């Protein structure tokens, strides 16, 4: 670990998550992560890393530490409420064939 002038170990560059809008009309999607000292350089690094072949028209960078995620350990309890509500899907309903455009 390199030492800075005051003798302390140099801090590593923080981690950022990168989201790229592939083209107009589509949402930003997660492309991956990278290290950068600040938001400006994170954006530049993201451009060089994830859009070398015009894969995007817009980039978001978010400090990884700022992302709140649902825990996979809670997945049953967290997502269960949707599990028994089949009536939320159109296929739940039986409609006579002669009723068109439904």
């Amino acid at each position, binding site marked *: 670990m390199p030492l800075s002038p005051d003798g302390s170990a140099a801090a590593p560059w923080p981690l950022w998550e990168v*989201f790229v809008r592939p083209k107009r009309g589509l949402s930003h999607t997660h492309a991956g992560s990278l290290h950068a000292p600040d938001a400006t350089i994170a954006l530049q690094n993201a451009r060089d890393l994830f859009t070398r072949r015009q894969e995007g028209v817009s980039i978001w960078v978010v400090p990884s530490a700022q992302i709140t995620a649902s825990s996979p350990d809670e997945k049953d309890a967290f997502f269960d409420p949707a599990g028994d509500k089949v009536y939320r899907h159109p296929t739940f309903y039986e409609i006579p064939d002669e009723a068109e455009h439904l």
Partner: protein
Amino acid sequence: MTAQLGDEDAQASFDAVIAADQRIEPRDWMPEAYRSTLVRQIAQHAHSEIIGMQPEGNWLTRAPSLKRKAILIAKVQDEAGHGLYLYGAAETLGVSRDDLLDLLHAGRQRYSSIFNYPTLTWADVGAIGWLVDGAAIMNQIPLTRCSYGPYGRAMVRICKEESFHQRQGFELLLTMSRGTNEQHAMAQDAVNRWWWPAVMMFGPPDSDSPHSGQSMAWGIKRFSNDELRQRFVDVSVPQAAVLGLDLPDAALAWDAERGHYDFGEIDWSEFKRVLSGDGPCNRQRLARRLQAHEEGAWVREAAMAYAAKHAGEDAGGAKTSREGDGHAAVA
């Protein structure tokens, strides 16, 4: 991992995901051996990408035309990018990038033995693209379906870009092969030197590959070393014919019964020697990597100092307010 589930339930849940050919994601519980196998493999892969910049980087300033130079710069830049995708994937397993680089620099993690061979002529750039990247693609395409999600996703991106690498190498060799007698001879010499190391890239024979069985069971590996090697030989022989170049193996012959090409004995003592550190360029490659890392330290530190000094200021036109839906966050 702070699994609320009991260990047995967690193992059962992991096994069910693997059995269903679904993907394990970073915060899922996973067996420690699965995690450490992936860290070792992904780190070795990432190290190979960044060390792999050196043999070809050697020719950047000596490319024969502006076109070839631009292509080679793009390729070497891709290799850096591939390294970064892979370090990013490794970090999702709870290791730090700095630690992985330290392990590489200390010689405690490996990179592919292929990058310890020298690039003696311009034709080597073509042979590397055709054979080395060709072998890498053969290895990597099945990895896009690896059971560990972040590794598979990194491989999808890498495989798309490797295709350009292989084709530019093939085209370079074809141009030389159809050029003057001297150019043809130079292309043939490069193929003579790179063929066997490329065949060795698939790793030891199945009979001597202790971790393969477990990696296959975990869905990390999809095909055995020998299967992939055979596939590589089978596609390379007709390609060499198109190039008008010979492969340096007198035993190469079509076996109609097997439906595959037979090929000669591989010198595994050479493979082991190069892997254990005694190849033509091992010391040079590692020393160059360490030099680049140490000489870049002040840049990394200065960037952090600048970021600390300007913390809280506008990020220079990068604010999301310019983005209509920026504040709606990543919903």
